[in-house]
């Protein structure tokens, strides 16, 4: 074990110095997540318009109010799906990818970005814009190094709710596409 306590913390000063705010963590890009979750499969982008009706059903299945964007959906030749979604909580915004096999079962989930801050900042559209389009190779203004943050355990319940709405998306909208492709 090799552990060095911070000298200012020992004498109680680390508490009074300027706070470090937990901000944004970028893990992998969309392309990297595709290779991780659906290796060796070529994916075709398959954006969809999400109708009001579908949006309502996804909302009631997941309790996530933030609307689902249908522009980040990909399909593999074998009928697998790769979907990027975002969940916005009171204190966090998480972009994640989920892979579904042709029968709609979740085969993997990967976090792309985790942005944490105070609730009002996350809710603010302008504040969120600064992260749009950022990738792992573009760490401008974001932490160069992902911090080692210790503390009480954060729940991933919100993300689990997000995956529930993707399951509804499959049942209502994607399943039919898989079937109609097979029919051809």
């Amino acid at each position, binding site marked *: 074990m*090799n552990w*060095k306590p*911070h000298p200012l913390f020992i004498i109680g000063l680390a508490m009074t110095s300027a*706070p470090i705010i*937990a901000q944004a963590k970028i893990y992998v890009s969309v392309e990297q997540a595709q290779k991780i979750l659906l290796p060796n499969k070529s994916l075709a982008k398959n954006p969809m318009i999400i109708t009001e009706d579908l949006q309502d059903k996804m909302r009631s299945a997941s309790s996530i109010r933030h609307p689902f964007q249908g522009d980040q959906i990909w399909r593999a030749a074998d009928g697998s799906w790769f979907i990027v979604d975002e969940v916005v909580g009171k204190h966090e915004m998480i972009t994640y990818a989920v892979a579904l096999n042709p029968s709609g079962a979740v085969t993997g989930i990967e976090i792309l970005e*985790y942005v944490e801050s105070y609730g009002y900042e996350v809710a603010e559209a302008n504040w969120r814009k600064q992260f749009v389009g950022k990738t792992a190779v573009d760490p401008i203004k974001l932490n160069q190094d*992902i911090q*080692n943050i210790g503390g*009480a*355990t954060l729940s991933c319940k919100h993300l689990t709710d997000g995956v529930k709405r993707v399951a509804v998306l499959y049942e209502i909208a994607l399943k039919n596409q898989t079937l109609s492709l097979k029919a051809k």
Partner: protein
Amino acid sequence: MIRCKPLLGTFVEIRIEDQSPPLKALDEAFLAVEQVQFLMCFHNPNSELSQINARSYLEPVRIHPWTAEVLRIAKEIYLQSQGVFNCGVGHHLVEAGLLPKHGKLNNYSFGGIEDLQLIEHFLVRSSLPLCLDLGGIAKGYAVDKAVEALLANGVQAGSVNAGGDIRIFGGRSQAIQIRNPSKPHELIQIGSMSAGAIATSSLYFANRSSGSKSFMVNPLNQGHIEFSESYSVVATRCVYADALTKVVSISRNTRHPCLSHFSAQAIRIPNTQSP
């Protein structure tokens, strides 16, 4: 390379510092965490933990070596902490609605980890009905297994962070920041580590409505405990760090005698906003 997945009810980050690590190293490290979740999850009625809870009072139950190792360590920490650490509190969490109910709880008088015997290396049976919850130790164990998977794949340096329980290996000194219990979105740099583990206990993310009970139970008086500060424990392995945070936060003693037995040390961060 760093990746993050939702596992163990939280977010698990695995990082490799090496320039060109073997591709399967990260996958295998995440698989190790998934395996621990599969074996020791209270929520899953088919996990080995649920099987032990359902059947070990009635018949011997054969278990995976990893489950057996966690139970052995849990018994060791129970003994060394004189009962301050005891996984046999699951029924209190079920009653409080914090864990799911599998079948009836009946009016059993439940035993604790001390009533579970490892009659062979991988075979357990209990002298009393049990409702074990490994929530206070399995996350740390999963972090250690992920690190072992990275090492087995030849990874030189890296770290694993499961929702705040961290292990670092490979020699490069890394700053460790802990959430401020008064303002959990602010971080306090408490030190740096190049090899070892740190875990933290606190109740600030419990998101409770007033009146609901805390998820920490004192096994000695079976009461749900409340505290607003946070307790971190630094140890060689994350399984010890994770379990010992419960000893320290339940006893509220950062110099608890069992820390030195495990070559561990504890750090208390006060909540400056609490009265």
